[in-house]
């Protein structure tokens, strides 16, 4: 899923401070799972903002709404009738949702309430970690199912580099060395002979290097 984290309160206050009527718009998908922008977080943020502006002696109407998805036309249509009645929509969806909302409601200011961080998984309650950078050309078949592009700080395809120490990355003793994990897994799978095959130069044109990407599936297009 897409993992996001809430923007600092001061930054949010700064972006909405001139509004008189604000809609905080949550999303029921990834940001709900990573507890950054679901219905619960919409409520908490709305309360916090109301308290802040009340203390400032400011009158500001803050409404709450959470859609099933913000990256889907169908659900975004649900706010068609009310979108332009707000000075701004503070979207707690990922960057995709923020943009899709903005594209749909051209005349309304749409602001991000979270920082979109990475594609990751829930390791435990309250801990999400990165697993994928959507490079567009998956190498996991060659690396024991562990991604060096997203999990090695230097995205080394023929690792580990010389900074791997006690299973940890040179950047931090808190970060696993992806290549230690790869070697451990290849060993467990009895596939260490594959380790000595040199990974060729990667085609990054499917990554962000190639410009904005799209996936087309003609057989399902209407």
């Amino acid at each position, binding site marked *: 899923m897409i993992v996001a984290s809430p923007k600092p309160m001061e930054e949010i206050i700064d972006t909405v401070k001139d509004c008189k009527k604000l809609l905080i718009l949550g999303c029921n998908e990834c940001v709900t799972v990573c507890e950054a922008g679901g219905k619960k977080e919409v409520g908490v943020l709305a309360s916090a903002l109301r308290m802040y502006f009340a203390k400032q002696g400011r009158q500001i109407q803050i409404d709450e709404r959470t859609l099933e998805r913000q990256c889907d036309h169908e659900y975004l249509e649900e706010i068609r009738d009310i979108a332009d009645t707000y000075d701004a929509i503070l979207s707690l969806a990922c960057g995709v949702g923020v943009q899709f909302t903005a594209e749909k409601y051209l005349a309304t200011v749409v602001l991000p309430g979270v920082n979109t961080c990475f594609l990751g998984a829930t390791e435990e309650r309250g801990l999400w970690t990165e697993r994928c950078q959507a490079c567009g050309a998956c190498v996991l078949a060659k690396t024991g199912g562990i991604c060096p592009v997203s999990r090695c700080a230097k995205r080394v395809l023929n690792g580990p580099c010389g900074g791997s120490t006690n299973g940890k990355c040179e950047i931090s003793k808190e970060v696993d060395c992806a290549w230690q994990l790869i070697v451990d897994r290849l060993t467990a799978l009895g596939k*260490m002979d594959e*380790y000595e095959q040199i990974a060729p130069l990667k085609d990054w044109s499917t990554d962000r290097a190639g410009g904005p990407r799209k996936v087309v599936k003609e057989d399902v297009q209407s």
Partner: protein
Amino acid sequence: MSLNTESKLEKILKAGHLAVTSECGPPRGTSLDKIEEKANLIKDCVDAINVTDNQTSVTRMCSLAACIKIKLMGLEPVLQMVTRDRNRIAMQSDILGAAAFGVNNMLCLSGDHQSFGDCATGQNVHDLDSMQLVQTVRHMRDEGKFLGGGDIAGPPKIFVGAAANPFADPFEVRVPRLAKKIAAGAEFIQTQCIYNVEKFEKWLEIARDRGLTEKVFILAGVTPMKSAGMARYMKNRVPGMDVPDEIVKRLSDTPKEKQADEGIKICIETMQRLKEVKGVAGFHVMAIEWEEKVPELVEGAGLYPRPEVD
């Protein structure tokens, strides 16, 4: 053995001599005087001089400019190039520029992560990794082609090196990784600083058993300790560094004013011991901001005077 390049380092190694290289870090400014000064301190006791590439990710004068300066002094530079800061266009371009000025040697590295340096908020590139950079230089030299397939007018005749760290983890892949670098085209290897001599010898023995020391010239990396404090710092803070407790203790047990001398002594002892080990083709002496000590180290190890080659 036939020569692939005009490199003095290649000639020395292929003539069967133990080679000696050292390094200069470019200045944090525009003056070439520092480079000249450092190069002059070591020129008579080394065969080639590595020029580091924004080491520890701290921004400095570019390695290529400093290499050209050293070349113009009539000396033999080794261009260090990290994959952190350049994409494949920039790297191929710099390789051509280096060769154009007669820089005959390169050491291909991935580079320390930028979080260690003065631009921790910067982007890193890593379009290629160090092994793929080795492949790239060899491809350009031997096939006379760019990565994109076009012909190079005057391919770069560069002797290609890579680094090896026998002390990084996991140990069991350190020799296979060396084998990969050789397969990628590395002709010489400069190792991480050796303090744990037993571990290095074990690594080398495994490499020797696989016949790898017949395929590549391994220069053992050494760095003299200036103090017990430096030894502790290297042991605890520098990733991929293996400093045994007895080295720290030996320096700690030495009075402070004599610790630097003791550090030099330890370094010379390491070189003397490794000189006799089969598979060691020479030494890479990294006296960090202590270049004036390189002659003493090389002489102490019995590696002076340096051999003459045509």
